[in-house]
């Protein structure tokens, strides 16, 4: 499998974001984007920077995706939950991308790339926690596809993803569809 350089994509992106600000300024701004973006941030990049084959095929074949279903979003094996760790908001009075009443939706998330068994395509999923209430306690799932450790936080599902909220008490996790990976 051909390797591509994240750094080259990243550099252009960072430069665009950064304008004339200092390195320190860039970092802060990136931090800010994570914490304050009201919707999952999506940023345009030049396709020319990206090479390699799409994220389907054998890389998408995990134990989870080979056993997932698309009918019941209150079950741990629902396809979007390939990287979820926590209580499913769908079991707590909310929905796959809806917090239960009284909870607050985090503006940040970790991400997963999950395969929808209906079209065999890979989608980008944003796991946003719902916060400010005691743990829901229903439908606890701990799926592990592409779950990294703390030093790669954006795909770590143990972190309390309630950044930017007044209270970070964990209630449940949603799994919003953000995009289809080509």
């Amino acid at each position, binding site marked *: 499998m051909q*390797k*591509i*350089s*994240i*750094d080259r*994509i*990243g550099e252009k*992106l*960072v430069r665009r974001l950064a304008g004339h600000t200092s390195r320190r300024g*860039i*970092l802060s701004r*990136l931090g800010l984007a*994570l914490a304050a973006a009201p919707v999952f*941030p*999506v*940023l*345009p*990049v*030049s*396709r020319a920077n*990206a*090479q*390699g*084959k*799409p*994220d389907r095929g054998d*890389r998408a074949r995990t134990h989870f995706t080979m056993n997932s279903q698309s009918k019941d979003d209150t079950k741990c094996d629902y396809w979007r939950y390939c990287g979820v760790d926590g209580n499913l908001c769908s*079991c*707590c*009075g*909310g*929905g*796959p*991308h*809806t*917090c*239960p*009443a*009284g909870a*607050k939706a*985090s503006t940040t998330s970790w*991400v997963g*790339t999950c395969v929808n068994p209906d079209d065999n395509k890979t989608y980008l999923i944003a796991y946003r926690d719902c916060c400010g*209430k*005691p*743990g829901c*306690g*229903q439908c606890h799932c701990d799926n592990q596809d592409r779950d*990294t450790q703390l030093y*790669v*936080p*954006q*795909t770590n599902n143990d972190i309390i993803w309630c950044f930017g909220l007044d209270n970070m008490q964990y209630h449940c996790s949603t799994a*919003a*569809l*953000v*995009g*289809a*990976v*080509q």
Partner: protein
Amino acid sequence: MLKSAKIRVVAIAALVMAPGMASGQTNGIASPLQHVSPTGAVTIPQAEVPSVSTLDAVQPHWVFVNRGNGQDGTRIFDGDTGKMKGMVNMYGQDSFAFDPLGKNFYVAQTLWTKQDRGTRQDVLLAYDVTSLKLVSEIPIPGRMLIGNRTHNLVITADGKKALIYNMQPSSSVNVVDLEKRTFDSKIELPGCATMFTNRLNGFSALCSNGTLATVAMNGGKPVITRSAPFFNATEDPIFDTSVIDPKTGKLTLVSYSGLITPVELGAAPKIGASWSLQQAAFMRKGTYTAMDVNWMPGGRQPIAVHHATGRIYVLMHMGEYWSEYEPALEIWVLNGNTHKLIQRHALGGELKGKLINIAVSQDANPQVYASDGSGNTFVLDAQTMEKKQKMEDSGGGILYTVQP
């Protein structure tokens, strides 16, 4: 167009990688971005934005399960589907109450600023029944810390006052004005506890000397009157999770030995003659005598009443004196008006010897709810006691159904 437009994105993963990039290392190691989007492009057919749900109007078949078994919060379940509808935030020994006006869920709460240290904070909270948002937080000068009680936070019949039981350790009631949203007054209530609101917007309470105290709240200084003694508070206590019909002010009191005492609350409560659960079931009356086995009521919340029909549901076990919290082997159904047994239901399978709390919905097609204190709440058919739903990890405490 935006929703379905095919736009090119990189995900947040790229952003967090920035520090790594900035160090200038091109190490050839695959990055998360590669898996997020190796082409650097993502199609967004319909980007889902976060939202927050609201609660439907409270339904008769909803059961509210108080915290316990290692879980905080009072969970709301739909008894028809077994699904959780939402949660009212509660902790430790917090108390829950419905609003007769149907606008709020009330919680009497005690927290310390630093959990096991810091400043104590006693408050009455009002949560909106639809948004479950906190709409009011009223400081109070203290409250009783005890779990699994149904009558330590009660709301007067007109919905205007909250009564919060306190013991520091002398016994009193803190009154909150729910219209002005302020603490109103403290009523000394020596020797009594377990409050039942009456339709006169006052309340009655059970007392250690076997009487019922009635507190008239008519604007002036509260006046306390006491009934003649009618029960034995130390030999044959009345369960303080006994049941009131808030619409009629009718109490159904049950004692450790199995005596049912009906009371009509009012300015001068009418205390009816006690009758025996066991005698209604063609058995020897329950006693509070050592070494005497009988069927006995038991559990933390051993009795439920369907007010429209007067049907009484009781968790029963075989036991000796002082077995008042033993889980049930049977559920007995009795007619509270005729004092006759309707049916005994032996509990089987995972229900046998497990249930300690019982409640019933108040509609014309009632459901029975029962829980085992270990996180499992069951929905039972009120006719057959057949198990219809099982809600796991539901909490371990007292069950509440709305009084329609």
